[in-house]
């Protein structure tokens, strides 16, 4: 079950970890965004771009994520979260 695997294996140990695997409260640095150009550009305009420090405010298993970027709070769908490669801050 995905729910338990996510808990058993603490996120942030691998290099290729995506935002979707992160835990609530975790501070992260975006290293890459693997999405189509338009989405990438849109995310960048909202502040989500490589090199930026972010924090997971909350996330539902399988549901959307709330990410803190500076003072903004961004809601991201799971597919988008899966396309964002992060490493622990």
């Amino acid at each position, binding site marked *: 079950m995905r729910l338990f695997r996510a808990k058993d294996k603490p996120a942030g140990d691998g290099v290729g970890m995506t935002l979707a695997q992160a835990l609530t409260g975790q501070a992260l640095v975006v290293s890459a965004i693997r*999405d189509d*150009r*338009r*989405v*990438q*550009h*849109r*995310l*960048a*305009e*909202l*502040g989500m*771009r490589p*090199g930026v420090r972010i924090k997971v*405010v*909350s996330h*539902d*298993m*399988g*549901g*959307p994520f*709330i990410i*803190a*970027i*500076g*003072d*903004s*709070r*961004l*809601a*991201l*769908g*799971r*597919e*988008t979260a899966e396309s964002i490669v992060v490493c622990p801050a």
Partner: protein
Amino acid sequence: MSGVSEMTQKTDDGSPRRRVVVALIGNPNSGKTSLFNAITGGRGHVGNWPGVTVERKVGPARRGDVRLEVVDLPGTYSLTTFSPEEIVARNFLMFERPDVVINVVDCSNLERNLYLTTQLLTLGVPLVLAFNMSDVAETSGVRIDDATLSALLGAPIVHTVGSRGRGIEELLDAAVAVAGDIPAALARQHSVDFGVELEPHVRELTAAIAQRDAQRDAGVSPACRESILPSPDGGVDLTSSTGKAHGTHNAGGTPPSRCDATCGQCKHAANLPITADPCRRHHRWLATKLLEDDADAGELLARLGVGEVDALRTEAAKARTHVERTMGRPAEMLLADRRYGFIHGACSQTVVRPDAGATVSDRIDRIVTHRWLGVPIFAAVMFVVFQMTFMLGGPLAQKLDAGKGWLAGQVRPAVGDSGAWELFRSLLADGIIEGVGAVVAFVPLIFLLYMGIAILEDSGYMARAAYVLDRTMSRVGLHGKSFIPMLIGFGCTVPGVLATRIIESRRDRLTTMLVLPLMSCGARLPVYVLLLGALFPNRTLVQLGPVPVGLQATMLFGLYGLGIVLAVACSLVLRATVFRGPATPLVMELPPYRRPAATGVVIHMWERGWEYLKKAGTVILGIVVILWAAKTWPGLPPEQLAAFEERRAAVHRSTGVPCDAGILPACPEGVSPSAGGEADVTYSINQAHGTHNAGGTPASRLAAIDAQQHRAQLEHSAVGRLGRAMEPVMAPAGMDWKVATAMLGAFAAKEVFVSQMGVVYAVGDGERTTLRQKLAADYTPLQGLAMLLMVLIASPCVATLVVTARESGSWKWAAAQWLYLTALAWLLAVGVYQVGRWIV
């Protein structure tokens, strides 16, 4: 509105004739609209989700001897071409050339908000920065060194609190000052330097565009052309030569990069209208657009009169390839990086903010957006809104309805009158007062519901609702954003359909459009209220502390809920069949929670409520008159009229003889206390004395004959015939020709159901009883339930169909929408009625 900016002229004789066009631009949730309201003193609309302010709004303001025309542009994060809002805002700035642009910046979220500012600086428009919500920022400990930041950006900064009207005068003073000398303002402003990798490309493209700009040859000197390029210190200088000499405005720039009328080389510049202002040609900004491969770049260039667009594109493509090869990332990402870098650099020098951990909003969000609690909280919030609407609005609506009844009674013709005057009075009483009055009676409910929605929007909860529902929506193949048009659809389906523009994917958009009518719009509320009030007892189901939970409110809530459930089911089916494909991702900002400002909520409520009233006053009036005509003609044949006259004469002859049901079969129905009377106790107080007296007086017998005549007339008329024709289809759902007739009216606009019922029954009875009592006498709760289902689901109104056709680009989709919803409604209503009858 006149969006075209007039030339800003400071007349030499000092006459107070200046008119300044001010554009307000800013991120969604930056408090832009509340600032607009504060500046213009109303006529605005505050929202907390993207897509509310799709239309730009205009309002007047005055500062000293200057008249301002303030244009509220839609909230945007950027000036690219991702959304219609961005395109609207960008086109206004580029082609309608406001005299000054006020960039509203939420200073509690400075860096993200300044991203748009960097684009405005590159675009080259005269800017004033309104650092809004500075109270919130101050409370959270943010300190901004205005002077330095203002110098770094090259634009004046004014602190404002839009919701409390603070800083407005200073803001307008700054705006008027900037508008008074646009070239100087543009000269002061600094653009982003895109760095060693990008800047040379940007400059090359800028020069290439300038070279092909036909307008340039209309009288711009080479020096002016130079000025489009950034000055050596990295800031771009955009100076122009409108009007006359503005004196010196050098701000330390190098002489060759300056252009004003004094240079003497721009020979025609003084005669150019501002729209051809040679130095506000946005060349540098267009160069960045070309580098970004913006879809609209070519079109914009062509619209500005720049030639050889294809050659420019080729050049830009070459630059893009070069950048991507050397830097490994697309140019638009690098440009965004440089803009953020510029902001970060500026802010690190000028802004101090405490390292806030979890904010209050975050803490609230942990509960409100909780995995399990989120949806129940959403349901509870919506329930409270409906309960409040019903509890406060119900009695008011009843009073208005009773007042309408009284008014109609005053003008209703006396028994037996005839002639043209009689016809006019009938139109007035049975058509206009009954029809429009019935709609107006529900205004308190509509206003209260809109108020509830406004509070939810302004507090920031609506965005959370979209977030919470994203899980459900993504299972249906839509994302939470699709819920925003649906939430708007609770107000009115038409703006809901328009709001589907925020959905990027066409499949998602069409799906959302097709299921939107299932969201119970404000116009359906009067119908629900009428049927619920008439056919269901107002019993208290549960007492929750001081709040009674009524049966009617619960059913109302259930109807709204059923609409949502059906919408979900229908989109699931649509996504699995007609619109199969991958779901689009959710990317949405969650604004911080805020206490809604009372004025904002009131303005918001008023604007939407007013729209409804206008509709009631115009469209509905027209429809009601048409329906009145349709039920008046064709008239009864003379021999039937004579028969009724004869019976009246008989009553007059036999004054005092008690009522005989055998002779006057309509008597008990028209006069006796209605069977459902106790269901409507509070409601019938006003009427009790007039109606429920002795059943056998001559007056009541005459009234009964009238009732029969009117009913006969209606059945004979065009509407009656059409309703009758529909009866075989409607009968399995427990509906008769009267309901069918009202449904015909509801096709024009949902709320017409109420007025049509009013007309149908006013015809059927000359007595001053309310519509609710009459309905209670004629229909059972089960029939009521079937009717409610029909009203909820069947046949979207004409306006919805027209907008759907326009927005989807094809009448095919509008037809599909009408057909599937009507079929679904009929099947459900028939199912409920037949099963219900079998059980009861």
